[in-house]
Structure formats: C-alpha cells, structure tokens
C-alpha cells in the first residue's frame, strides 16, 4: 500500500478531494507529499468509489494538485511504551524534546474503543487535592472527569497545577502519572506548566503533548486522543493512576467548528457542529476505573467559558457529559480570593460515593449540604441588603449574611501552597458553621452536631 495518487481535484480549507483511487478505508491515515519535498498528514473523512475526502492536519498551505497522496491502510495509531514518561511530544505525537523516537511496545488506535459499561467499576476512591472547595464541597474521586470551568485571565492554570502537585489518595502510595495535553494554548502558558513540572520533579512522571496556539488547528483534533491513548495505556497496561489534564477544551471545540465549516456541514447551536456532544463524549468518557484492573484514568481538564457564559455550547455540552464541574469565578477573583472557586454552580456528582464513614468522615455530606444552603441564602441576602439595608433583615438572616462572608474568607480562601487535609477542611467548616444558631443547622443530623460541633466538644471535655 505505498501507491502514490496524484489525483487531487480540489483543495478547500483543511480538506482535499481526490478521485480515481483504489478503495480507501474510512478514517485511514494519509500522507501527503508536497512538490517542495515536505510532507503533511491527514485522515479520510468520506470515501466512495468516486471520491475521497481527506482532512489535512497540518493545514493545506502549499498544497496543490501536484501533491501526491499515500494512503497508509490503517487508522491513526500512537506508538506507546512506558518510556513515554518524561517525554515531550508534539500534538501529533512526534518527539519535541530532541530525544529519540518512542520505541513502541504497541501501536494503539488513538480513537480508542468505548469502555464496556459492564466492565466499569464505579469510582469511589477519594482524592485529596488539599483545596477545601474541592475536597470539602466538590470531592474528586479516582476515575472521575471533573473539568475546571474558567474564564480568560482567571487563575485556572494555577489551580490545575496546585492539584497536580497535591493530589493524593490518603493512605496510599501507588504508582501515578500525569498526562498533559496542550491544545492551542500560548507558548507562555505552556512554559508555565513545563516549569512547574520540572521544578516539582513531576516531569519524570509525565507525558506531555503540545499543540500550541501557532500549531495547526486541525492537529488539535487528534492531540487529546493521543493523550488519552497514552493515559489508558499507562493505566490499564501498567497499573498506574493517571491524571489527565487537557487544556484548553475551548480551543479544541473551535477547531471542531472550523472543520465543520470547511466541510460545509449544517451547523448546530452557535455554529458548532451538531455532533459536538458525541465528539466531546468520545474524549471525556475515556476516564474511569475497570473492574479487576489496578490503574485508573482521572480527567481534570480546563475549559475557558467564552464570555464567562456557562450556557455557551462548549461548557454546556461539557457539563452534560462530565461528572460535575469546578467553576472559577471572576467575582471572587476580583475580591482577591484564591482559589476563586464559586461552589454554588460547582458540582461533583461522584462526591457521594467517595466520601463518608470509612472514606473521609461520617459528617462530610451533611456539613457540605449545610454550607451550600447557608452560603446560597447568604449570597441572595447580599442582593437584598444592597436594596433595603442590613437593618431590615431579621436576626436569622443577619447571621446567614455573615456566614457567607466567613465562608469566602475562611473556607474558600487559602494560599497557593496550602495543602489542607480533609480533616483540616472539615474543621474549618465546623468553625464557621458554629457561628450560626444550632437550630438553623437543619441539614445536619443531631448525632453529628453532638459529635463535631465545637460547642459540644467543649462541654464534653
């Protein structure tokens, strides 16, 4: 299968159209030889007896009808091996660090196959990130996909790095790795990550894929697939617990939109392809734990919401697929609070299976619910106070208003290297909750109040 076709009849955006080929497989990897001797790679999007459509990853600059096209006879594969750890690869999987090519153990289709739901083990191992707004109120578990929904200029990278540094499963020291995939982020941002990885020694345990802002957008469509393929390999062949950080999902979706437009597809909401949900699911769903296997893939991706709008199709469709989201808030950031995580729109759906007696602590859920309820009410009251003044509030409401401030100041705020244990987090939680009248703690069972409420602790001592 090394026959070269010179039958390009049309080049349009990132697409080329050829006729008179032998039968070509859907999704096949394609090499394009340009007249100037350079090569590009692409993938078959549509194949028939009369016409083949190829999407070119590196863009079609310099391509013309004289270019030759060679079909590889197979879909896109990533050479994988344990030696990938510590390596920096391009968004298409080629070494960027001057090191040798990866000597593959296996070559794996980057699209991956769907994990059989019957093989899945419901994730339930609590990961302590050291950040109270995550551990206390939106707990992450191994095998979960929990993205950060952020906005331009907010400290999402710092949060992601802090998590990558601090994340651990209390009481275990199993093999872990980080797979980091940059999609369309700036060189500076990428450097920020790389330096931190180097400083903390994390690079040795990391595989890095870089598709930067000035790399071809189409390549972005395979970058996360490469990264997830590497992650699955390390997790399921080498029993590692892999944390995958994909950033920025928004750039990935822009690339998808660009491709759709080039193919002249009927666009869905706000110009994004109608299949974007399914496409994103094919990335996010590649997180999980398999029964009987030791490793796991946890995804903690970054998504910057265009215009800070959570109803924009990118965060919206993501939120419908992921197992919750951590929302970074501009308002808290402006107030100077780090990490500026707004817990109200944040959610971890797998929290319930990761916390409680024997995992974190028996009162964890109740404490979290109580803080949510009180903080939500407190924030509403802030709006009211702005209109009617504090005096118009009842005694009960005033307490709740104060609680909201305490919550932001003591529970949310922590320093950039403060690694709180879950006990620290719950202690802070009880401290601020005890500022509310006990009768108002309606979400908490009496037995927990007796066990953990500071007021009761004193009397029992």
């Amino acid at each position, binding site marked *: 299968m090394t026959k070269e076709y010179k039958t390009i009849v049309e080049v349009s955006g990132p697409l080329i159209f050829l006729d008179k080929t032998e039968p070509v497989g859907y999704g096949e990897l394609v090499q394009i030889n340009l007249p100037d001797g350079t090569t590009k790679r692409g993938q078959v999007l549509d194949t028939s007896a009369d016409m083949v459509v190829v999407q070119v990853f590196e863009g079609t600059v310099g391509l013309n009808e004289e270019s030759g096209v060679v079909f590889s006879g197979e879909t896109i594969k990533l050479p994988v091996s344990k030696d990938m750890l510590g390596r920096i690869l391009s968004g298409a999987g080629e070494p960027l660090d001057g090191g040798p090519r990866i000597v593959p153990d296996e070559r794996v289709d980057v699209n991956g196959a769907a994990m059989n739901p019957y093989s899945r083990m419901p994730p339930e191992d609590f990961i302590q990130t050291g950040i109270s707004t995550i551990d206390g109120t939106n707990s992450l578990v191994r095998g979960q996909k929990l993205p950060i929904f952020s906005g331009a200029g907010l400290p999402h990278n710092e949060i992601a790095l802090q998590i990558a540094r601090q994340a651990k499963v209390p009481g275990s020291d199993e093999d872990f790795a980080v797979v980091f995939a940059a999609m369309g982020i700036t060189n500076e941002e990428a450097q920020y990550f790389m330096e931190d990885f180097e400083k903390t020694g994390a690079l040795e345990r990391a595989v890095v894929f870089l598709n930067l802002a000035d790399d071809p957008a189409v390549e972005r469509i395979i970058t996360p697939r490469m990264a997830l393929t590497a992650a699955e390999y390390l997790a399921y062949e080498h029993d590692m617990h892999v944390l995958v950080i994909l950033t920025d999902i928004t750039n990935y979706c822009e690339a998808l939109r660009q491709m759709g437009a080039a193919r002249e597809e009927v666009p869905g909401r706000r110009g994004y392809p109608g299949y974007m949900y399914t496409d994103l699911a094919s990335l996010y769903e590649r997180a999980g734990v398999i029964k009987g296997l030791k490793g796991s893939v946890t995804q903690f991706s970054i998504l910057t919401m265009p215009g800070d709008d959570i109803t924009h199709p990118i965060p919206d469709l993501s*939120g419908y697929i992921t197992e919750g989201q951590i929302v970074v808030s501009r308002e808290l950031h402006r107030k100077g609070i780090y990490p500026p995580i707004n817990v*109200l729109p944040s959610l971890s759906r797998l929290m319930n299976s990761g916390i409680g007696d024997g995992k974190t602590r028996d009162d964890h859920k109740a404490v979290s619910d109580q803080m949510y309820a009180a903080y939500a009410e407190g924030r509403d009251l802030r709006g009211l106070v702005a209109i009617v003044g504090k005096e*118009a509030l009842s005694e009960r409401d005033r307490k709740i208003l104060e609680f909201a401030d305490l919550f932001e100041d003591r529970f949310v705020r922590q320093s950039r290297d403060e690694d709180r244990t879950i006990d620290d987090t719950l202690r802070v939680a009880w401290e601020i909750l005890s500022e509310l009248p006990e009768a108002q703690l309606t979400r908490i069972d009496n037995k927990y109040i007796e066990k953990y409420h500071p007021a009761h602790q004193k009397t029992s001592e």
Partner: protein
Amino acid sequence: MEVNGEIYRVAGPVVTVTGIKPRMYDVVKVGHEGLMGEVIKIQGAKATVQVYEDTSGIKPGEPVVNTGMPLSVELGPGLLESIYDGIQRPLQVLQEKMGNFIERGVTANGLDRERTWEFKPTVSNGDAVEGGSVIGVVQETANIEHKIMLPPTVSGTVKEIKSGSFRVDETVCVLADGTELPMMQKWPVRGPRPVAKKLMPTKPLITGQRILDGMFPVAKGGTAAIPGPFGSGKTVTQQQLAKWSDTDIVVYIGCGERGNEMAEVLNEFPELEDPKTGRPLMERTVLIANTSNMPVAAREASVYTGITIAEYYRDMGYDVSLMADSSSRWAEAMREISSRLEEMPGEEGYPAYLSARLSEFYERAGSVNSLAGLDGSITVIGAVSPPGGDFSEPVTQNTLRIVKVFWALDAKLSQRRHFPSINWLTSYSLYTQGLADWFSENVAPDWTDLRDNAMDLLQQESELQEIVQLVGSDALPEDQQLTLEIARMVREYFLQQNAFHPVDTYCPFEKQYKLLKSITKYGEMATAALESGVPMNKIITIESKDELAKVKYEEDFDAALDVVMAKMDEEFAQLGGN
C-alpha cells in the same frame, strides 16, 4: 432471504450500499466484519444504511448482506437482570468475547441459548389459541412469573404442548398447522405490539418521593418528562423512580449518557431491596446502556429496544415503568443521522419528523388490556436535556406537547442543594384530578385538601417574596411573616428529600401524609396563637418546630413524630394567648 451487494461510500456511521434489494429498516451486515446496520433511506439503486458500530477502515467495494429482516429484539425469559447495548447485545457477553472495551463485529444473542427454564404449560392439546394467548409460564425470578405468549400474529389449535426444562429456542408447543413455537419470540422494535384495548390510567405510580407523589403524581400508564440543565437532578430522579416505584418491572435506558452511571446502577441494584417484595431490585430490572461514547446509530435504536421489552412485560399483565435518560440524546442521534443524510433540517437542525417520532414513542406508554386479556401498563418517564437549560428548545417543547406530567428542574434550586430541585411553581400534573378519588380512598380523605393548602401557601410565598425583595421581611405584617415561615417549612421539611440518606431516600405515602399533616397543624396552631396575641418570634422559635425538620430522617418515624407533636402541643399551651 439474504441478498448480497457492496459498499459504495462510507462517511462515519452512514454507509451507502448498492445491490441489496433493500426495504426500509431491513437489517444488513456491512463489510468483511459484518457490522450490523439498518436501511434508513432508499434512493434509486442506492440504499443508505446507519451502522451500529464504528466504521473506521471500512472501504468501498466491501460486501454487504441484506438479512431481509427488520431490527428486532428477542423476547423471552432471561431479559430481567440483563444489561444490553442499544441493539440488545448483552454487555456481559460482549465483555466475555472481547474484553473491557467494545470492539466491533461481534454478534451476540439477546437471550442466552444455553440456559434452560422450567416451562409449565397452561393450555392443553386441542385448545384454541390466538395471538397473545398465554400458553405457559416460567418462573423467571423469585417474583416474576414470565408468561409465555403466542406471538401477536400467530393463532391456531394446540396440537402438542410440552412441559419441563427447555432452552428459549426449543419448541414447547406445536399448533395444528405445524407451527412450532419456542418460548422466545421476536418483535420488530420500531412498531408497537398490539393490545386488545387502551384503558384510562386510574392509579398513581407510588414513587416514595414526596414532591412527586404528593404534589405532581404520575399515573400508572402515564407519561412524564423531567427537563433540566446539567447537574440539576434528572438522573438521580430517574434512578430514584427505578429504585422505589411500586412497579413490577423497570426498563432503564441510559441513552447517550455516562458509563459510570450505568456501572453505579449495576453495582447498587443487586444490593437494594424492592420495597414491594423485599427482593433485590435487579430482579425486576432490565438495563439498556448505550452510553454517549458508544455508536450513535445504536443510541437511536436503544429507545425502541427498551420500549419493546417494556411492552412485552406489559402484555403479561405487569405494571412496567420505563425511564429514558436522556431523550434529548436520542433526538440528537436522529439529528446526527439526518444531517449525514443531508435531509432538510427543521428547527435547530433537528429533522422535521422529530415531533412525530417523539409522540409515537410516548404513545407506546399507557394502561392496557392485553391480547391475553390481562391488565398491564407502561409508565414512561423521559429526561430532557435542553441546551443551556432553556426550555424553549425543540425537544423540550415537543415533549411537553405530549406528556401529561412536567417535572421542571431548576438550576437555582440545585445550586443551593434544594433536592429534588423540582420547581413547585412551574411543574404540573394533569393526573391530579383523576387520581383524587384514589388518594382519598387509599391515603386519607383530607389528603387533597392538605396538598392544595400546601400548594396555596407556596404560591403565596412567591408573591410575598417579591415584596420582601423590595422592603425586607421585617417590614411585612406578622401574619404574612408567619405565612413565609410555614411555606419555608413545607419546602424544607416536606419537599426537600435527600436521595442519599438511608432513611429519607424512600418515603411511604403514610409518612408523607403525616409529615404534611404535622406541618399544617403547626400552621394552624401558630395562626391561632398569633391571633390571640402571642408574639411572632415566640411562635417561630419553639423547639418542637425545629425538631419537626428532622423527624423525616428517623428510623422510627412514627415514634419520633409523636414525641415532637406532643411537645408542640405543650409548647403552644405554654405560649398561652387567649
């Protein structure tokens, strides 16, 4: 009759083929690997096929075989406790055949051909039997007696009927015309199974969820939709219904949603007890899991696979509930396929037939008298996932035109962890009137009054809140402040229900009644006290009121409630007044 042809074009899940003498919805085997697909469009010599598996690497020129059969499910003993993909391949078998990831080209029977079942005939030689007649029974699980029925299209006289242990494809009955009948039958999924008569739904589906049973009940055989933005509680609500509803059979379709959610059900249901029978919940459940990353054409089919299985148990005289999570993903699968077919798009790119498909699906719900003369029902509860949480989009709107119950999830409520976050002002049930008699006979004569009162309070609350937003609550007259307080009790003590609390997750109707009655009683005593001059802050700070908030969590609810209510009487007596 099989017809051979070849592939002309491959573009994702849509493959164009030639030479197969297609009929619409014929099942075809595509390519060297024999990937399963279904004819969805015929144009001249070419037929368009939606393929249920990944088509990477498939080439023009590869062979195609038309089986000449429509997409069908296998119906017979062994459906319960199974987990299938969208085209009824058992996921457990797929795992045995190809490991933890679903590769393609593997076929697997919906029903196990090795397993034997004890068949007890209920007809004798010479009996006349018709389509749908019961000819025997099999004890499928401890509580479900599986009725072996004649396929709806077959009738005749029994020439031979067997008894004993058989596999599902072995003949158990022969008719006079020579027709040999195994226990198993097939039914094409895209059309409804016939019934003798459709009946009016008259009984509620008791779900153990206070806001559903109490405020917006759905009838057995009814239809309900739960629309809501992401993370607002669609799946948790559907799972609560699957767990606690007083139904005989549950068909749960995970349509384009998360793999972990299905794993959770698989993990949990064998451990949980059916409140009605005490048996493991899994024994009454059939799961269909075509998650978001599984092929989109099979997702489109999953909903039909599920409802056909539901109809089959309904025909045996069972009450079935079917949950589809999420119907929006099904609609999107239609949209995806339609756009690949380059059909004229309708609203927001959905095909023009969206509304017709949705109503055909919900029409398959209902309370019926089956061909066997048995009364059964299918209650359909569909989750809807509107983009951006905006209910004005086509799937939500088209669904609301059909279903009778609307449980509107509200992100504002879920964000403050008010669960279930069903908005009590915008939700409705069109069954409330029709079920009123049932409630007064089976719950309490004053149930409907209590409910209406509570709803009225909540309505007043929302009006008063508008004033509070302008002037603060302290500026309201005391009686109105009291109204706000009682409404808050209804919300927090009654409507809020924690699905993850071991006790509160399921609330029997009697408990719902007592709880609402107690809140109402507090309201009456408080109003009386206020009228006789007791100051408001004394009334709302009595201890028993706060204790009432927590009785729902008590194992021994009745005892705890008695203590609290006795204390309440005492406290009000001490407040005096009059």
